[in-house]
């Protein structure tokens, strides 16, 4: 018997291009996608329940493991939230703030590099992925010297950072590419001179890549706000909204940087915004380095041995690598948080899949998924 019908296809949970364990249920009419529904929860590790049973500092390592590609940004969100709960009791030293911001921006570069590299690889370009790995490696070896960890750091503390930068890691502005994995200045110079132009020429200017991403998965500005998109997804749709500028936290109001904004809201614009953001991050790192080289000082505030924030609650939002990372901490005056809620951007962004996919071809799902850049550890927590 011959007949035509819609075909239900499961992409994942073991599909290599779904960035972890994500299952996309897709209905196909030939090559056309008519319906798409993500199924999540394969990586659920009870972060919120666990953190109710730990003391405040003990939660920091868990926050690393939510978005494991941008661990320092998550730590920063949680640590700042708890510090705000204390009010004036904890004053974080300025040097610690600068170290945090510098580390966060370096982390943003690593995260964006991987986002770009894996998206290019999913679209069939394997070489950029290897380049991204090579350049990330240099930052990771710097991180290893500073924090002791390569991926999951547990470096930020409530009241500051664990240790000051090691001797000689800042380097001098003259450091060239040969010192890219030895000093931070070396990496930044290497990044500006080689990495950033290379990505522009190798992938962004590539005709095939542009055909695969332009006018695919178009998200209008109204839709982006209604669907609570943030980060590169929101800015790719043309909304100039960055929490570092619009709701300044830490020391971001003293730093100079621009917010790249896309026009059409398609996959290519989201890609382009990420690429430009890396360049802005390198600008921020330079300003922090200049300040850090001249201002030695303590990196840890005086904090009590047992942390007991006063009763209260806080919803602290920061600009993570993927968008708005927010942490809702409720304190009942005890040593453990009464409740920790993690608002992760990737979880919110995955809701866009049923909106963006229908009408496109199967191969475009991969482009859309790569451009909204989900990390499943953060989706499922």
């Amino acid at each position, binding site marked *: 018997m011959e007949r035509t019908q819609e075909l239900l296809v499961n992409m994942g949970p073991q599909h290599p291009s779904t960035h972890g364990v994500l299952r996309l249920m897709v209905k196909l009419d030939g090559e056309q996608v008519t319906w798409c529904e993500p199924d*999540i*929860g394969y990586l*659920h590790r*009870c972060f*919120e*329940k666990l953190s109710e049973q730990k003391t405040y500092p003990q939660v920091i390592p868990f926050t690393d493991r939510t978005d494991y590609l941008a661990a320092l940004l998550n730590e920063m969100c949680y640590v700042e939230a708890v510090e*705000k*709960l204390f*009010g004036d009791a904890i004053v974080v030293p300025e040097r610690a703030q600068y170290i945090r911001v510098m580390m966060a921006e370096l982390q943003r570069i690593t995260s964006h590099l991987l986002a770009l590299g894996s998206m290019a690889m999913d679209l069939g370009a394997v070489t950029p992925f290897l380049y991204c790995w090579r350049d990330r490696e240099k930052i990771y070896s710097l991180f290893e010297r500073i924090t002791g960890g390569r991926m999951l750091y547990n470096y930020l503390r409530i009241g500051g950072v664990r240790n000051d930068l090691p001797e000689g890691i800042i380097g001098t502005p003259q450091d060239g590419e040969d010192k890219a994995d030895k000093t931070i200045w070396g990496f930044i110079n290497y990044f500006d001179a080689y990495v950033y132009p290379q990505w522009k020429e190798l992938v962004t200017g590539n005709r095939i890549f542009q055909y695969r991403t332009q006018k695919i998965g178009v998200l209008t500005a109204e839709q982006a*706000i*209604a*669907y*609570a*998109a943030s980060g590169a997804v*929101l800015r790719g749709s043309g*909304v*100039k*909204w960055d929490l570092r*500028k*619009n*709701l*300044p936290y830490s020391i971001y109001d003293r730093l100079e940087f621009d917010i790249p904004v896309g026009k059409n809201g398609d996959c290519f614009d989201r890609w382009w915004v990420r690429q430009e953001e890396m360049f802005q991050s390198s600008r921020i790192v330079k300003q922090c380095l200049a300040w850090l080289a001249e201002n030695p000082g303590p990196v840890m505030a005086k904090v009590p041995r047992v942390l007991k924030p006063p009763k*209260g*609650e*806080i*919803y*602290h*939002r920061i600009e993570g690598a993927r968008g*708005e990372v*927010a942490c*809702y901490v*409720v304190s009942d005056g005890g040593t453990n948080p*009464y*409740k920790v*809620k993690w*608002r992760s951007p990737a*979880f*919110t962004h*995955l*809701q866009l899949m049923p*909106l963006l996919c229908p009408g496109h071809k199967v191969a475009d799902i991969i482009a859309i998924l790569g451009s909204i850049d989900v990390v499943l550890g953060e989706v*499922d*927590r």
Partner: protein
Amino acid sequence: MDFLKERFPEAQFETHVNGDTEVLVPAERYEEAVRACYDAGFTYCSCVTAIDWQDRLTLVTSLARINPEEVGVPNLHIKVDLPRQGARIWSIANLYPGANWHERETYDMYGIRFDGHPNHRRILLPDNWQGGHPLLKDFTDRRPKRPRLVRHRFAE
């Protein structure tokens, strides 16, 4: 937050350390409060979650205003007290599509039902999960204990 103060003169207002405003409204006026915020430009639903106070549940809806020209607009948290058993509330997922999954997660973890939700299912836990709602404070894992793995002995 004057537009809410005019409308809800008897509601409790509180300010967080970082400047966010929270307002506690009665459950039957939740829809009215959310719509008032929506009309005032708070069109971005940052988060929906709940807190288990052991004698009641508190639903927290965090709304934000996305306006590139404004700097430092604090969030608005609308709170509703609900009973621990059989809590029901109007769903905002049709007004804020971005709240869809957050409401599903709140149902999954706290058991609050959302009336009018387009896809009211569990999200992180499996659909056939029978063990209750894990983020409630009195949650106990009632699954049978898993047998300890016996270490394999090599032949001597």
